[in-house]
């Protein structure tokens, strides 16, 4: 089982952000949808080990994100909506290499993996360019490149296309959906992207309202939006 939650709740300050969430997600691509404040991003951060559950049982790739956070982080990658906050190093190639820093690989291997990742994301020509001079789309591609260079088993993307135009959003989405052996949890407001996933999870007010085949879940979501 890839992601398993049993009666998980998350309380942040005085607010119950997730309430009694139980899920078993084994699909390769999972869309997480819902209105603002419904708990989608907290769910993404919870399974990414950035938020600690208040109650319940949780396992991601067979690991407890609270007790074995370091091991889990080596196997997953997170991508957020704001690429500026994900870029750390001054040039494109250095920023991609930064993702491998914790692995303490030999410099030859780092160079090879960075070069292959830049090539895959079409960033080779920009390798020596200052990272923060890139366009929004290029920055998000760089953030993805930095995530995928670690060869993650699970990619958790929280609204990765939120700030992008249609063309760049499609490029980013195509990379996320490309089957490189990774699983994908995609938090999104883009219902077209959600439809590309194998399974969709609908959150409302911190609870799971529905789980299943995306077309049916999106119809349910549309019905909620019409109310």
């Amino acid at each position: 089982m890839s992601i398993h939650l049993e009666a998980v709740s998350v309380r942040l300050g005085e607010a119950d952000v997730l309430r009694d969430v139980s899920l078993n997600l084994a699909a390769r691509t999972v869309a997480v949808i819902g209105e603002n404040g419904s708990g989608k991003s907290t769910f993404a951060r919870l399974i990414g080990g950035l938020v600690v559950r208040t109650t319940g049982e949780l396992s991601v790739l067979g690991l407890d994100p609270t007790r074995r956070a370091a091991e889990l982080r080596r196997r997953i990658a997170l991508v957020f909506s704001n690429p500026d906050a994900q870029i750390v190093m001054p040039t494109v190639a250095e920023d991609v290499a930064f993702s491998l820093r914790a692995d303490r690989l030999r410099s030859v291997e780092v160079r090879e993996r960075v070069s292959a990742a830049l090539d895959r994301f079409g960033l080779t020509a920009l390798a020596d360019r200052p990272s923060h001079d890139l366009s929004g789309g290029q920055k998000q591609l760089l953030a993805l490149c930095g995530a995928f260079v670690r060869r993650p088993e699970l990619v958790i993307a929280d609204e990765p296309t939120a700030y992008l135009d249609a063309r760049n959003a499609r490029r980013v989405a195509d990379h996320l959906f490309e089957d490189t052996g990774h699983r994908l949890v995609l938090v999104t407001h883009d219902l077209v992207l959600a439809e590309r996933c194998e399974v969709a999870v609908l959150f409302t007010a911190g609870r799971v309202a529905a789980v299943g085949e995306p077309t049916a879940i999106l119809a349910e979501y549309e019905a909620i939006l019409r109310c």
Partner: protein
Amino acid sequence: MLSFYRPGDGWLHRMPSGPKAFLLFAFVLGVSLLPSAWWAAAATATATALVYLLAGVGGWRELSHQILIVRWPIAITVASQLLFLGPEQAVANTVRVVAAIVLAALLVLTTRVSALLDMIERGLRPMERLGLDSQRAALLLTVTLTTIPVLARLAGDVRDAQRARGGRSSLRSFTVPFLVVALKHADELGDALTARGIR
């Protein structure tokens, strides 16, 4: 993102960052120990210019650029020393200070930030016996350096937002929203670092 690195393939670029830092430090130390005399000022200026010309960083153009950056400290140094010490000592001391600054700048001009990060981490490793986390300290320095332009952009965004809403600029009306967006950025950056496997 703040980076002073100038891409190139000169001998200083090719030199490993540790020995390069040591060499430049030795050079700066040598210059600092020279007496305050006309001949020492001339020797220092010549040696510094030669290093810039041979380093493959853009020669005179880069040297003038670096001197231009420190023009105000130079002006203040010269003026105050002319007043109290006389022309020979004023010029010699100022040339020494300027040479030390522009020679030290060669380290960041010819070394990628990632190599600097490695060098700082290696350099701080002996301090681990005293409880210092060298990896974290090096990362802190790097992130500080690279976050300055992001904060500058956020400050610009806050000012633009205030202007767009017809607000009058005051320290308080700028500081509060700027602190909010800066702290939000710090939160996001922390998450991104954690997500990339950095402790």
